[in-house]
């Protein structure tokens, strides 16, 4: 009955995609996808990484051209592969990776491409006035004269939205807009979006976070492996149903009950290094210590410090009660520090090396060489063992690691670390970009390592991940670390305040 009602009520769609198909080589990114968007409506596009959401939106926005299918805005077909046409038709996109020039000011970024290239003046006063006006109307506070590089991530996103509004976009496409925001910034974004809807704009909201989709969308489309597998009115569904449609089966996340602390394996007292200021931290055996915070607040420095890549400027570090005289990456490995680096492509693996070479990067000198000669037979056996034990799907140990998917690459890194029975594990964003299956796998392995007595430092931007796995939680903000809180002791809102830097005593 609701279908009848809505069908009669709704005017012509502002946006329609019909039968969109796109292939990259042998990979089908989108297969026969159709939907339409109406005035004042928010539809959510839900799906795991690689489900085809971003490809679909890039086709809509003219950055890719579809192999088959039609895109219509306000009843007029859009030519394929022409972002300009989409912009002119009133479609604005807020990209996941911002398309801003850091060294230019806010108003210059907004003005870019909005004026005739042959014009003799940029009319800065006019651009700034209109920007201020839009800022006020949509609660998007930002200084038009600020250099974009000096803004926070949340502010940059506001600039991206302002760019679209400045061009009088009637349809906003937001690609994973909350991935980089604190909970408070997310609330502010949602307030802005509700304001926009009330002014008659329509929104496509791309996400894989179910509670956000439930909070903002009217209708949700679920993509899986490039196909549109379900379409639901938000009132007719719930988060559990959407999750199982999204992954194509029951989702069973590992249960990780909180554990009491074992002996302290690593303590930092008043540690100052890189951007870190006066950090106190204890990693206990048999516990996961979570570090919440928006990325770029010192997480990298913290994991580098413990991994032996960064040296202390002041303060003290103790490993199992002893102060090491000397701390670098090699001694860290020797002291049983296992490292799952933030960027598996840059710091975790060497792309053109095969699986075997990557698997023994940390141990080739100690375990896989004899009298200066490599023992490749042993190395390959070890790699085959890792492939089996950690379920790395790959053609074999001789495959270059760059050919593996992110999930399988991460499983190999996980195996490389866990096989050494590390005392301390530094896991920096261990599941970023992985699909739910791989996420659950990595989490259950980390939980198992915890039970066997490892002290684990879990750094993540995803608050849900931190709150689900950690026995105790610190929040990091601008290089400072909050005190430890037991799991459940802090609400999301309170953590958000710490993330925004409130609560820290002002350093003199």
């Amino acid at each position, binding site marked *: 009955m609701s279908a009848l009602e809505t069908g009669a009520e709704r005017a012509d769609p502002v946006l329609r995609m019909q039968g969109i198909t796109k292939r990259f080589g042998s990979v089908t990114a989108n297969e026969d996808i159709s939907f339409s968007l109406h005035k004042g409506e928010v539809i959510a596009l839900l799906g795991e990484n690689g489900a085809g959401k971003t490809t679909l939106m890039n086709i809509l926005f003219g950055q890719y051209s579809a192999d088959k299918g039609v895109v219509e805005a306000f009843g007029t077909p859009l030519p394929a592969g022409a972002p300009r046409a989409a912009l002119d038709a009133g479609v604005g996109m807020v990209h996941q990776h911002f398309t801003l020039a850091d060294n*230019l000011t806010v108003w210059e970024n907004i003005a870019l491409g909005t004026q005739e290239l042959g014009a003799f003046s940029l009319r800065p006063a006019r651009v700034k006035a209109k920007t201020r006006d839009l800022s006020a109307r949509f609660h998007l506070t930002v200084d038009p004269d600020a250099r974009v590089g000096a803004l926070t991530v949340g502010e940059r996103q506001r600039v991206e939205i302002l760019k679209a509004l400045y061009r009088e976009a009637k349809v906003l496409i937001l690609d994973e807009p909350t991935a980089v925001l604190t909970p408070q910034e997310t609330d502010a974004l949602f307030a802005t979006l509700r304001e926009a809807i009330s002014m008659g704009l329509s929104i496509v909201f791309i996400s894989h976070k179910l509670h956000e989709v439930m909070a903002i969308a009217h209708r949700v489309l679920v993509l899986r492996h490039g196909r549109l597998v379900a379409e639901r009115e938000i009132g007719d569904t719930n988060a559990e149903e959407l999750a199982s449609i999204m992954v194509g089966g029951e989702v069973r996340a590992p249960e990780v009950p909180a554990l009491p602390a074992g002996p302290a394996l690593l303590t930092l007292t008043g540690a100052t290094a890189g951007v870190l200021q006066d950090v106190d931290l204890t990693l206990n055996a048999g516990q996961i210590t979570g570090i919440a915070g928006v990325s770029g607040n010192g997480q990298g420095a913290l994991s580098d410090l413990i991994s032996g890549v960064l040296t202390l400027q002041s303060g003290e570090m103790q490993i199992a009660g002893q102060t090491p005289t000397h701390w670098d990456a090699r001694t860290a490995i020797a002291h049983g520090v296992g490292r799952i680096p933030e960027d598996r492509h840059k710091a975790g693996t060497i792309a053109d090396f095969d699986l075997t070479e990557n698997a023994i990067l940390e141990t080739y000198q100690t375990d896989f060489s004899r009298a200066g000669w490599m023992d490749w037979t042993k190395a390959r056996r070890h790699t085959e063992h890792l492939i089996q034990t950690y379920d790395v799907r790959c053609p074999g140990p001789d495959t270059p690691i760059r050919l593996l998917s992110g999930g399988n690459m991460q499983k190999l890194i996980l195996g490389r670390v866990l096989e050494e029975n590390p005392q301390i594990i530094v896991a920096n964003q261990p599941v970023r970009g992985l699909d739910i299956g791989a996420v659950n796998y990595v989490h259950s392995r980390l939980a198992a390592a915890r039970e066997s007595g490892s002290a684990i430092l879990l750094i993540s931007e995803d608050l849900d991940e931190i709150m689900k796995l950690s026995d105790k939680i610190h929040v990091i903000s601008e290089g400072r670390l909050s005190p430890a809180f037991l799991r459940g002791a802090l609400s999301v809102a309170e953590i958000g305040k710490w993330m925004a830097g409130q609560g820290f005593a002002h350093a003199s």
Partner: protein
Amino acid sequence: MELLDILLSASFWAAAIRIASPLIFATIGELICERAGVLNLGIEGIMVAGAFAGWISVWAGLPLWGGVAVALIVGMAFGLLHSVLSVPFGLSQHVVGVGITLLATSVTFYTYRVVLPEVSSPPKIEAFQPFEIPLFSDIPLLGPALFSQTPLTYAAFVMAGLTAFVLFRTPLGLAVRAAGENPSAVAAQGLSVTAIRMGAVIVGSGLMAVGGAFLTMSAFDSFFFDMVGGRGWICIALVVFGAWRPGKALLGAILFAAFDALQIRVQQASLGTVIPYQIFLMMPYVLSILALVLMSRSAQVPAALMVPFNKGTR
């Protein structure tokens, strides 16, 4: 004191401005390329080609401004070649640039031998003469230094001002700067990064060639091998020195030229009899390196300089 006398003489500053002129053209040309995100190492060769093309056209009968136009077109042609290889094909800008320099230099020498097979010394042309701007040229010191130069020198200063205006005050300039900072931002606004970058390289290369032509048509009246003599590489450094800003780059060019003019005069002064002249020859370069170290610390490098942009890749 001798040094003070030199620094206060109008002829010294007139020489400095004259020496600076080709550097200003070529530095502004390079700056335009780099602002759009393309390092143009073809500069040295393009200056050689421009020096020859302008001079030989005038020798063959074109008017002086016709020669400048020919140099400009030859420079733009090499710019087109550079930009096709470096922008849509995305080849290494280092390799393309050095290749263009080698190609332009050798094509120039080859053409010289083909056109003038039998000469032992190159023919002279009637070069640009100084043009005194009424009233202004009567100002003491500044007058003879700034306002009694050849028309091409005035053109160099006008070009620097015009470039600054276009880069910072017009939508086109904003698009060029954005292409050098974050090409995705340009593409997301529906503008063509390829067209903007190619255009910048072509225009910039044209200016480099005019800088070369200044040597044969205004500073001297003939063409010699090696007459560009590394000025192109100096201009690359001047762009960094000027922090990618036309005004500062212009001052940098004048500063370098002043050192150059100074060393010639100091050699002839009494000091020159005590210290070997090679020390003085080194002076502009040593001082440039020092100035570069001091100035370039605060410089904002265009973030996407030397980063090829391919639409559709992530």
